[in-house]
């Protein structure tokens, strides 16, 4: 189903393309908005795609910009807990895999910032908002990666939850976001498998290794479930996002689906999930889980998690320490451009 929708294109070109705003009279602008809205509504009804130069409602643009930039920030901040174990990875093969994984996350950040830039905000500004604490990122990365087994649990559970969330986003109505997500999901899927493999190896290892794996699963379980966002009756933005074909399934639907997936896989791992209330409801045909501590979720979201301060400080530090390098690159590029212009003249 997903692949069919991905291929669909609007029947006619958008009326907003190739028009320039400054030449327009108020009447023309109003007519353009009306035409734009009609086209937008048609695209939504056909479940096809809006592209960056198409007309779009201001609130749609704002929602997407917020969501895509938050997603990009999550990738960038999400590099930190895993980078924490690169130097100590217990085998060279694991070190290589982990390095490649963290590098992939930087790549995801790049595609996503680029997708967000098509909505009109430069990457520098988004970075600044992140460092100023104005922009959010996924709360999960405010938890510490305490042991090597956390590399497994993060891959299996956190990336697993991310995939459950993101696969439907491959069909998001905004073209650049959907296309970025196709690539991101392929890599995330690989990340999840390597996380699973780390846990499997630990689970089949010494009793201490198995305990390390179980402990990591215990710690990451609830935060991973909360990655899907608040329960549906407490998620004010979800409805509009679904109407705009950005979001396809509700937070609880995705969370329940994820729990079912974990339940199958944890058996293969020979580990358990720290939730005695997980069950498959025969009536609703849905998986259910025990209560989650939403107070903790809101605490971490408000900046009072274990690593909030550390993560932002590390980002700021890297950014500030790199300022002179970025200035040098810009100055050099300007000098080269000037030199080339002179040579041409």
């Amino acid at each position: 189903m997903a692949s069919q929708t991905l291929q669909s294109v609007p029947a006619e070109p958008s009326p907003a393309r190739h028009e320039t705003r400054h030449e327009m009279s108020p009447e023309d602008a109003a007519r353009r908005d009306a035409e734009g809205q009609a086209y937008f509504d048609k695209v939504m009804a056909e479940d096809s795609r809006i592209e960056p130069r198409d007309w779009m409602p201001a609130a749609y643009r704002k929602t997407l910009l917020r969501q895509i930039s938050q997603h990009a920030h999550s990738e960038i901040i999400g590099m930190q807990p895993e980078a924490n174990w690169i130097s100590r990875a217990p085998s060279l093969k694991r070190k290589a895999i982990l390095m490649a994984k963290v590098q992939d996350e930087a790549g995801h950040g790049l595609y996503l910032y680029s997708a967000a830039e098509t909505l009109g905000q430069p990457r520098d500004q988004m970075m600044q908002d992140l460092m100023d604490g104005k922009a959010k990122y996924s709360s999960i990365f405010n938890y510490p990666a305490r042991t090597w087994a956390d590399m497994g649990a993060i891959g299996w559970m956190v990336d697993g939850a991310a995939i459950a969330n993101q696969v439907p986003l491959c069909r998001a109505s905004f073209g650049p976001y959907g296309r970025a997500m196709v690539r991101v999901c392929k890599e995330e899927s690989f990340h999840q498998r390597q996380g699973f493999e780390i846990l499997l190896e630990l689970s089949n290892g010494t009793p201490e290794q198995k305990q390390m794996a179980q402990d990591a699963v215990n710690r990451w379980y609830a935060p991973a479930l909360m990655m899907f966002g608040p329960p549906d009756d407490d998620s004010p933005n979800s409805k509009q996002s679904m109407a705009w074909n950005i979001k396809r399934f509700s937070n609880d639907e995705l969370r329940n689906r994820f729990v079912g997936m974990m339940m199958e896989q944890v058996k293969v791992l020979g580990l358990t999930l720290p939730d005695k209330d997980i069950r498959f409801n025969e009536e609703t045909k849905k998986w259910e889980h025990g209560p989650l501590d939403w107070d903790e979720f809101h605490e971490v979201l408000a900046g009072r998690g274990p690593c909030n301060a550390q993560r932002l400080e590390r980002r700021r530090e890297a950014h500030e320490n790199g300022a002179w390098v970025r200035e040098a690159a810009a100055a050099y590029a300007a000098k080269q451009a000037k030199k080339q212009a002179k040579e041409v003249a």
Partner: protein
Amino acid sequence: MSTPEATTEANAHDGGHGDISVGVAGAGAGGDGMASATRITPGNALRPEDIALAVSRGTAKPSEDAAEFALRLGDDALVLAQRLGHWISRAPELEEDIALGNIALDQLGHARSFLSYAGGLDGKSEDDLAYFRREHEFRSVEIFEIPNGDFAVTIARQFVVSYYQFELYRRLVDSTDATLAGIAAKAVKEVDYHRDHSAQWVLRLALGTDESRRRMIHGFKVIWPYVDELFRDDELTHRLSESGAAVEPSSLRADFDRLTGAVLAEAELEVPQVQPAPGGGRRGLHSEHLGYLLSEMQVLAREFPGASW
């Protein structure tokens, strides 16, 4: 296992490498969009696993000298990978997180290949050698051990070592030792890119702003005392060059000086006038920095000796 890559000669023998499916039906999050991500496509390149396999089957076995030589190059690359890996999530730009991460991964790949081969002498794995040798048993030279410093120090170190490694690997491609030649053939292409990366940054930093120029000059001053050690011959390299398995490090110096000199000239920089350090890493006499690097790298593996990861 239906991709063409998965059936090439290089990896057909280790069955299953190309697929690390978690072994649970529907274990992904569902959806066909991710199907292709379950396969690794390594292409035809010689991988560390291929070398380990060849060594374990006895189709490749290093001489004592070749093993010692592989240990040297493997340790250089491993220590550098460990240093560069620290930049991931700390680089001046996202693009550099990726670039330095890539270079670190390349170096780690070279290290794994060289160490796998070196271990073939007495049945040791790459991990036995990386995690369970003591400091004096390492054979890296000092320039690889120098702390990252600021970005300019890291770039100065990268510039020197990538030009050195390129000249070395370019010649090792013709080694009479087929495994060393094979590793070098893969590595030389990657190190060529590392040269390009560092040379471009030397130009940007040296000709960018006053501050970046000052820092670039300082970076070279920090690094240059350790350049000479890279090109020092000893009895081992003498024997290996006699047999055609390797070359004397001193024979790389003229090309190194010429090629780095051209970039430095374009960057309007001079070769720093500094006294060379005596070094000693090839004999196990290391900088004070190496112990910290090794203790961090080895801590977890040593907490669980004999464990599998």
